[in-house]
């Protein structure tokens, strides 16, 4: 703090602190506190607000625990978000390795440019593109029929499979880039040393590259899991009647029932889940928050 005062003087230091405080208090901390507070209040008709019925209660959370379908959807959201995270890791890892250790330096900027394009295309359009591909009369079914691999068009958009396909497509790059950054910082000599000492390729990956990539795995997993569990677009565009996502229930409370209090309790549960996931990943991979958020 004295550092800042010495370099920029009192006025500027105060300005820095005011702006930062405005951000953290008004835009982050206070809204979270209000979310938490509202989740312990009841949804009342306007006349009863502030009256004797306006008390703090855990009723909204009880609603969650006594509604089996809500608990079930919450569990499914956790399960399928984990599946999406694992699939994203499996398909991103070879490419991250390729980009950091195999691809020629000349090719890299072009490859990254190609990778950046889907990144910048809005999520709603990326899910929409899979909506077209997977539809009953879509290109995928025509292609498979044309190749004679299937005799009947397949209903792809059913159950959770299309949601998983869409989520992996939308978020795999959030796994790829942290992995790339982590593997790239590994000294190539270490890989060569392992190979020279007779290590087969899989052991080199298992014992040398993967341990080094831990911060990247942690960062990518946290991002993909959080984005998947919190996704609204993909489950509602690519979901079917048999696949429901927890965010859809939050939306129901907020928009259809207009019950913002129960909605905020459910939103808080989602926040709790993501916080828990972050801390578990930090514990397992022994990384700090600054390794994850980069």
């Amino acid at each position: 703090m004295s550092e800042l005062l010495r370099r920029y003087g009192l006025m500027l230091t105060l300005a820095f602190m005011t702006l930062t405080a405005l951000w953290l208090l008004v835009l982050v901390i206070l809204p979270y506190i209000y979310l938490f507070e509202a989740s312990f209040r009841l949804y009342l008709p306007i006349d009863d607000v502030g009256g004797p019925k306006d008390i703090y209660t855990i009723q909204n959370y009880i609603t969650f625990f006594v509604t089996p379908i809500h608990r079930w959807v919450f569990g499914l959201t956790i399960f399928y978000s984990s599946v999406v995270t694992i699939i994203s890791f499996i398909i991103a890892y070879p490419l991250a390795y390729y980009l950091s250790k195999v691809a020629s330096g000349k090719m890299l900027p072009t490859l990254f440019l190609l990778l950046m394009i889907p990144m910048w295309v809005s999520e709603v359009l990326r899910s929409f593109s899979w909506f077209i591909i997977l539809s009953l009369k879509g290109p995928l079914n025509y292609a498979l029929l044309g190749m004679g691999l299937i005799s009947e068009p397949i209903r792809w958009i059913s159950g959770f499979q299309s949601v998983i396909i869409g989520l992996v497509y939308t978020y795999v790059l959030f796994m790829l880039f942290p992995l790339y950054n982590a593997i790239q910082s590994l000294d190539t000599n270490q890989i060569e040393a392992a190979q020279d000492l007779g290590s087969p390729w899989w052991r080199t990956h298992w014992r040398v590259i993967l341990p080094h990539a831990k911060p990247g795995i942690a960062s990518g997993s946290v991002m993909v899991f959080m984005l998947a569990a919190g996704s609204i677009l993909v489950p509602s565009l690519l979901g079917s009647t048999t696949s429901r996502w927890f965010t859809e229930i939050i939306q129901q409370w907020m928009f259809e029932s207009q019950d913002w209090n129960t909605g905020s309790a459910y939103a808080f549960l989602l926040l709790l889940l993501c916080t828990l996931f972050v801390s578990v990943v930090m514990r397992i991979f022994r990384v700090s928050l600054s390794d994850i958020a980069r």
Partner: protein
Amino acid sequence: MTSKNSTNWILHLYMVLFMAYLLLPLIIMGGAAFNNSRFPSIYPWVGFTDRWFIDLFNDGRLWNAFKNTILVAVAVVALAVPIGTTAAILVNSLTGRVRSVLYGFMVAPILTPGAVIGISTLLFWHKLSVPSGLHLSALGQASYISAFVMLLVLARLQSFDRGLEEAALDLGANYSQVLRRILLPHLYPAIGAGAAISFFQSIENFNTTLFTRGPYDTLTVYVFSRVRSGITPTINALALIMITVTMIIAITYEVLRRRAERRALERGMASE
């Protein structure tokens, strides 16, 4: 050596497949914009048409949504860039426990689902009797987009030579001169990248906007409602335009970056 080449061959193939996986859906979506069929698809190909683009152009709601999106994005850049920059300077001057706690609060919004940010922003301002609308969308988005700017500027600050500031102060510069002439010029690349990322992140945002927007449409919300309420290839036409604009910006950025790199290299050679 032969085994290494064979694995490289597999990895090259994998890269090509991965790129196809990423880009083919976008190509299919863009191609369907020209197909004269009610349902957006590239197969069966009914015939070439530009009518989806004409429909799109005559869609008043879309233009309105477009205007709103740009408005919010500009507001988010105006909020997030100064906030993120000053927060980075502040956190960089701290050490120990205070630093890590403050840093934790700053990156927390990145790790929070957008729906949660949207709902908490809505509730907080509702409490203060501020109705929902685009202003809340901008505030909600700025709460986490500022963190991206902060991280970019903080990374750039690591390569800053503090001695320069000392020297300027010793030579009689005043405080605002130190900031304007010494520190900020060093940070400009990060600030510029931060502004670009803020702008695009804001345009892309759906989750936070959905809960805070009130009765107003943004592009993503509009596309979403169109996809749900009976799709026509006008959305593909819109998608194609958006992808093309994105690609032009991305390629321009890349060309400029390479040119700057080459110039820096030449300068480096000349000074040797």
